[in-house]
């Protein structure tokens, strides 16, 4: 016989402004099985929690329903309170009458009635709750960091410095990411390479870090504490142990006209190459798509010139498997490319470039050794037009969001240009200037006031070539929409930051959620900014949304702290709200038919087979078995099981059915 306590929270006025909490408490007190029903202003406060605890003892409650906010908010709070009063915490349920009711409805009888209905469903559910015990699983204290940009580097070093093993997986031949391509960084204008490359070296040398470059995630099984990560090491066609990185092969490689990815196509590289001189590791890989040997079957110049005989043409992709307790996603971003901007002639006119290309022009290690020269003819441009928001905040281009970094880097670009070409005139077309970081506004003011960058508020409608000049047509909205036309020598588009190529595929491999722009989604935008919805997988940097360097590094350290926090325990305590295969006494044993379709459907590889044997060891039947350490309680198998042989503890068929019946049958 159930004795349920119902506790209605006003949540200040969050609930009571639209829901008649006293009435809910009164009606609930008459539900069958309810022993006590009260309302209170702040149930989560100390006196509120005491109310619950005292009622548990006084009324010998067998279950508690706290009608307040979302269980995401305070379920742990109240479950702990129940536990302190001696009630199994899993006999406590939250009835969400805030997010599901008061916040989304007007004040009125119907709203109060809905709150009553919500409470009734949970009362019916909690009557069927069972006492459960938490699950403990051991933690593999290794983190896999996916992505070797500044976010990955920072996170890896933080975790490794805390004494835990890190495996870093980088898709490119070198770590460094976009930051290694940058010239100087706002708002301080310090050299990007100078601050990054030492950290890259630290990664390579750190005893706790294993670095796999030119590698990709093949598959991920398991769950928090115990991921099994399979990594594909793409063939570098080279024995790294033997290679000394002397560079002889690179010098002699006959294929020299491959547009360099690192130089954003503004420079060339060979088929056997290192992306840039400061690369880590500083050992070449063969780009098989462009290598003559792989295309035509002969050449092998590199093999001939290699003094240590390190070239391995027949090398195949290999795999390593890593047992990891946590995964950290730091896969970064990309920028929108040519095809999106036909009206600006991007891709058509050589002197219309994007921001990342400008970084290479401005970089001391870049193709022009830091001189600003036009890609078309190498002339120094006298007028450059920078167009901000190229693609960002533009629903027509499918990207309604602000890319956040462009205002600042465009100001920086204009400033760098002015510093290098004193007689030059930089123009910036902008929509709004968003300079909200520390020293950012000052930086922009400096560009306008000291470096005389000409800011024009308005959009550019068209860029076309006329007599060797790029004619930029736009409007100045501050001059009542007066048309503006500038004859420029070069145009730089601050193209939108977008999710990195392959992010969707990776998200699916890892079962993390992602938004419509394919950026990975954080678990909570405010309270869980570096967590994903999948426990044990964390986020850092621009793979989540475009971020500048300070923000990226802060997020990386934040994510690292989460990993370190997780690794501070030997065992992981988890809610036991997991799936189980139901058993019954002989002669049935279990209604499981052994079709094992649940194994196919389980996203966490948590299901395997179990043999039921008689006393003599003969197998009577083989049924599914759910590994409690791996199961995440997602319920997919439950929905899939035709014979209804699987239940989720805490959400079993009977409980959910009772909830639905309670709603429908009144």
């Amino acid at each position: 016989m159930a004795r349920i306590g119902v506790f209605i929270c006003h949540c200040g006025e969050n609930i009571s402004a639209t829901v008649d909490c006293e009435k809910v408490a009164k009606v609930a007190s008459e539900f069958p099985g309810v022993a006590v029903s009260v309302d209170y202003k702040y149930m989560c406060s100390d006196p509120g929690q005491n109310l619950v605890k005292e009622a548990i003892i006084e009324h010998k409650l067998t279950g508690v329903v706290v009608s307040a906010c979302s269980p995401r908010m305070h379920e742990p709070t109240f479950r702990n309170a129940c536990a302190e009063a001696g009630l199994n915490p899993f006999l406590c349920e939250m009835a969400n009458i805030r997010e599901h009711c008061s916040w989304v409805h007007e004040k009125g009888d119907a709203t109060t009635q809905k709150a009553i209905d919500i409470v009734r469903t949970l009362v019916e559910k909690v009557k069927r709750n069972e006492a459960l015990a938490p699950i403990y699983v051991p933690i593999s204290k290794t983190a896999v960091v996916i992505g070797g940009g500044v976010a990955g580097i920072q996170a890896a070093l933080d975790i490794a410095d805390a004494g835990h093993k890190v495996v870093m997986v980088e898709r490119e031949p070198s770590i460094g990411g976009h930051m290694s391509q940058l010239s100087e960084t706002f708002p301080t204008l310090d050299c990007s390479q100078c601050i990054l490359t030492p950290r890259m070296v630290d990664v390579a040398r750190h005893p706790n870090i294993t670095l796999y470059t030119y590698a990709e995630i093949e598959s991920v099984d398991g769950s928090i504490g115990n991921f099994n990560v399979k990594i594909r090491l793409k063939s570098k066609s080279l024995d790294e142990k033997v290679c000394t990185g002397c560079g002889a092969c690179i010098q002699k490689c006959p294929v020299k006209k491959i547009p360099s990815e690192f130089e954003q196509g503004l420079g060339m590289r060979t088929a056997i190459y290192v992306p840039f001189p400061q690369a880590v590791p500083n050992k070449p890989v063969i780009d098989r798509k462009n290598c003559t040997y792989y295309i035509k079957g002969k050449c092998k110049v590199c093999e001939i010139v290699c003094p240590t005989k390190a070239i391995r043409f027949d090398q195949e992709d290999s795999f390593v498997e890593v047992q990891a307790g946590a995964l950290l996603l730091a896969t970064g971003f990309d920028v929108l490319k040519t095809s999106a901007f036909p009206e600006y002639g991007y891709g058509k006119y050589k002197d219309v470039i994007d921001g990342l290309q400008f970084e290479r022009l401005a970089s001391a290690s870049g193709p022009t050794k830091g001189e600003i020269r036009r890609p078309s003819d190498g002339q120094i441009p006298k007028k450059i037009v920078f167009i901000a928001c190229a693609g960002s905040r533009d629903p027509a281009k499918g990207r309604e969001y602000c890319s956040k970094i462009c205002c600042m880097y465009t100001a920086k670009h204009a400033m760098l240009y002015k510093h290098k070409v004193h007689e030059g005139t930089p123009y910036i077309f902008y929509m709004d200037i968003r300079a909200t970081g520390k020293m950012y506004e000052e930086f922009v003011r400096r560009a306008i006031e000291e470096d005389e960058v000409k800011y024009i508020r308005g959009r550019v409608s068209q860029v076309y070539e006329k007599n060797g000049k790029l004619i930029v047509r736009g409007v100045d909205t501050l001059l009542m929409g007066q048309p503006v036309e500038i004859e420029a020598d070069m145009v730089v588009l601050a193209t939108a930051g977008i999710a990195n190529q392959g992010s969707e595929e990776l998200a699916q491999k890892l079962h993390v959620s992602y938004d419509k722009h394919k950026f990975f989604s954080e678990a909570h935008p405010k309270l869980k900014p570096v967590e994903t919805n999948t426990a044990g997988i964390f986020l850092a940097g621009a793979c989540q949304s475009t971020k500048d360097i300070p923000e990226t590094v802060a997020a990386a350290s934040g994510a690292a702290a989460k990993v370190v926090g997780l690794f501070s325990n030997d065992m992981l305590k988890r809610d036991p709200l997991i799936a189980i295969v139901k058993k019954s006494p002989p002669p049935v044993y279990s209604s499981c038919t052994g079709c094992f379709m649940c194994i196919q459907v389980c996203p966490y590889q948590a299901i395997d087979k179990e043999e039921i044997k008689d006393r003599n060891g003969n197998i009577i039947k083989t049924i599914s078995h759910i590994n409690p350490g791996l199961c995440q309680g997602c319920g997919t198998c439950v929905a899939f099981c035709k014979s209804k042989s699987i239940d989720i503890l805490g959400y079993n068929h009977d409980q959910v059915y009772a909830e639905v019946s309670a709603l429908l049958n009144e």
Partner: protein
Amino acid sequence: MNNIQQKTKELLESGACTLIIGYEKGTGGKARPVFVRKAEHAAKLIFDESCDQNIAGYLYRQEIKNESKKAIVANNHTLKSIVELASENQIHEGDFMVLAFTAEGEIIELKSFEEIEKHVATLYHGLNDEDKATMQKIEAMTMEERWGFWENEFSKCIKCYACRASCPMCYCPTCTVEINQPQWIPVPSHTLGNLEWHVMRAMHLAGRCITCGQCAKSCPLDLPIHLLTYKVALDSEQYFDSVAGTSVCANNVLATFKTEDHENFIR
């Protein structure tokens, strides 16, 4: 027809088999399943166009599982069901012999699941003209008309469960309709409860129905219930390129995610 009698007689005489599951002539000339244990009874066996009943379901019956050397005379439906049942782990390679027929009517023994798969690949998997026509007729109906159509059909159902009993894919020893905690589906056979039962069955057969139509053929009231599972099977093929009963290693359509699936809703 004679070659089946000859072949099975040899199998029984040589001791290669002790039980043949096949077809014989029944009441009024209809074909029906038969179990032959003696060589002299092999003459009972027939195989012709009347033998269109899917008999794969017998393979996992406990009494028959216990027989060590058995062979099944499999028509095309039965073959597809064997593949699907194998993919769902209900029957196992080597537990039985499979006697099938070429398009020319020649008897062949399919020695492995791989050979069955290859044979199945040569078969037509679509609907017959009559079913196609009914399906089109129903699809052309408005929502209300369609509801009316099925309401009328389900009002006739007596819940004898002949559909379930004769469907080889309905192998759960405890069917959902028999679970009473909670009582998912009402036991009495009224229209709404009947609808719940048939819709539930169609969902459980999603990606598993090999479109043999045995459920409808078995229905004493001639309800076109096979169209429910057919519809899901057609959708599985159209949207997810999944045809049940063609591959032992295939995962169920509802259990698989491919990046090229158009499932924008889960983002």
